[in-house]
């Protein structure tokens, strides 16, 4: 027999009273009063007795709740003090934290990750609103940027599943730069987000090495029933830790890069470091040399160019020339 929603809400009130270590052995009258207080409806003793009987039943009809009427104490108790209707005992602080987390998840999680995750988060948030009706009256104190959905983002779930379950993927890739389409057989191991753009990284059979592909340039991916080629995750993860962005400049190792920033730009680098290797050496004028140990990337050059005359490359010399050539 399915449990209706109002009955389940009474079960939770009964469960809460039976778990209360500070006030043990609740009486029938106390349960009726608690139901009125928590749920705002009058509940008869007969209904509560039926609820307790139902809670005692084995799943799926009930919860196998070890409820006993203790004659000497004049009230009800769980004979197993560790029993909880929902399996997990939550304090008021836990519940408040869950409510806040659900709110935060809804703000930052959902649409930025995938439709599947978004649906899961929506379910959690809807449940929170159902369980805690007053929650929806809370004012919003956090606002995040939610960019419009980008092309290729719909493939997130497929690539995520491929990474976890180790399935190669066939897809068609279009290179914006070369204006060329290619069929790619990829053994993906990492999905990376950088500045709201999504990338999949894996071993490409066509290139015979680890490559990065923007999801916006990926078409019609399919999971394949092929042996998965694994790569040395330590090497690849170390490499990606040494990047600002995702596309390294070919054949360039990790190296010292020195930029000179105006006083204005220095404030932003101090407030928002772009990489863990960043060191700011400030001069008395406020101008600073900003030093990185990085594998140079296209994204680093774009960042430098985007700052105009606020930022210039001091070294290495080849990067000065490379950046200049990119502008021509």
């Amino acid at each position, binding site marked *: 027999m399915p449990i209706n929603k109002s009955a389940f809400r009474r079960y939770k009130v009964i469960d809460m009273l039976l778990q209360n270590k500070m006030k043990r052995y609740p009486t029938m009258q106390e349960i009726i009063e608690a139901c009125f207080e928590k749920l705002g409806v009058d509940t008869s003793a007969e209904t509560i007795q039926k609820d307790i009987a139902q809670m005692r039943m084995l799943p799926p009809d009930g919860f196998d709740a070890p409820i006993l009427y203790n004659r000497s104490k004049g009230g009800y108790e769980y004979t197993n003090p560790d029993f909880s209707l929902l399996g997990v005992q939550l304090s008021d602080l836990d519940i408040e934290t869950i409510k806040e987390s659900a709110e935060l998840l809804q703000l930052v999680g959902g649409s930025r990750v995938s439709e599947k995750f978004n649906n899961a988060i929506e379910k959690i948030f809807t449940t929170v609103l159902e369980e805690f009706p007053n929650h929806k009256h809370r004012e919003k104190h956090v606002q995040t940027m939610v960019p419009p959905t980008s092309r290729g983002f719909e493939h997130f779930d497929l690539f995520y599943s491929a990474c976890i379950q180790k399935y190669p993927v*066939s897809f*068609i890739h*279009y290179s914006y730069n070369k204006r*060329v389409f290619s*069929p790619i*057989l990829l053994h993906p191991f990492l999905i990376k987000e950088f500045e709201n753009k999504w990338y999949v990284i894996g071993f490409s059979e066509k290139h015979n090495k680890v490559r990065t592909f923007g999801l916006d340039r990926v078409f019609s991916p*399919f*999971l*394949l029933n092929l042996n998965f080629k694994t790569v040395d995750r330590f090497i690849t993860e170390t490499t990606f830790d040494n990047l600002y962005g995702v596309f390294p400049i070919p054949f360039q190792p990790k190296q010292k890069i020195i930029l000179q920033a105006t006083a204005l730009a220095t404030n932003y680098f101090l407030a928002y470091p772009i990489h863990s290797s960043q060191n700011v050496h400030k001069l008395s004028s406020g101008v600073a040399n900003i030093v990185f140990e990085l594998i140079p990337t296209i994204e680093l050059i774009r960042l430098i160019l985007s700052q105009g005359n606020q930022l210039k490359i001091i070294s290495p010399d080849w990067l000065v020339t490379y950046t200049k050539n990119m502008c021509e």
Partner: protein
Amino acid sequence: MKLPVLFHIQKKDIANPVLLRVIISEQSTRIDFGYTTPWYYSKGGWIKISPATYLTVQGSDKKYTLIDVEGIAIAPKRLNFQSTEDWKFFSLFFETLPTHDCVFNMIESENPTEDDFNFYNIPLSFTDAIAFRIE
């Protein structure tokens, strides 16, 4: 081999559109193409595919007819581009090809001009076929 299977086509010659991938299932043969607009058409021109387009397997007279498209217009409709830097990924679906090694042709016009999408001598070797992962 259990269907569906796919073949990556690595052609050396420069064609436009370029034939990229063939997927054979029990329902259809899907062929994936990529098209980049050329410099010599104003605003990149347009593309379309004749509804009479078909596949043939060399050594047989049987025609495998076009049954569906994705990402391209069926003539007389046209898919118009906006610039000479545009591009389009599209797929054509035909009746299922035989599931053994073969060489096939795709014929849009039997008297083709350079604007028709005719492709010849596409080899399919089932030893190169890749099986799908069916969830």
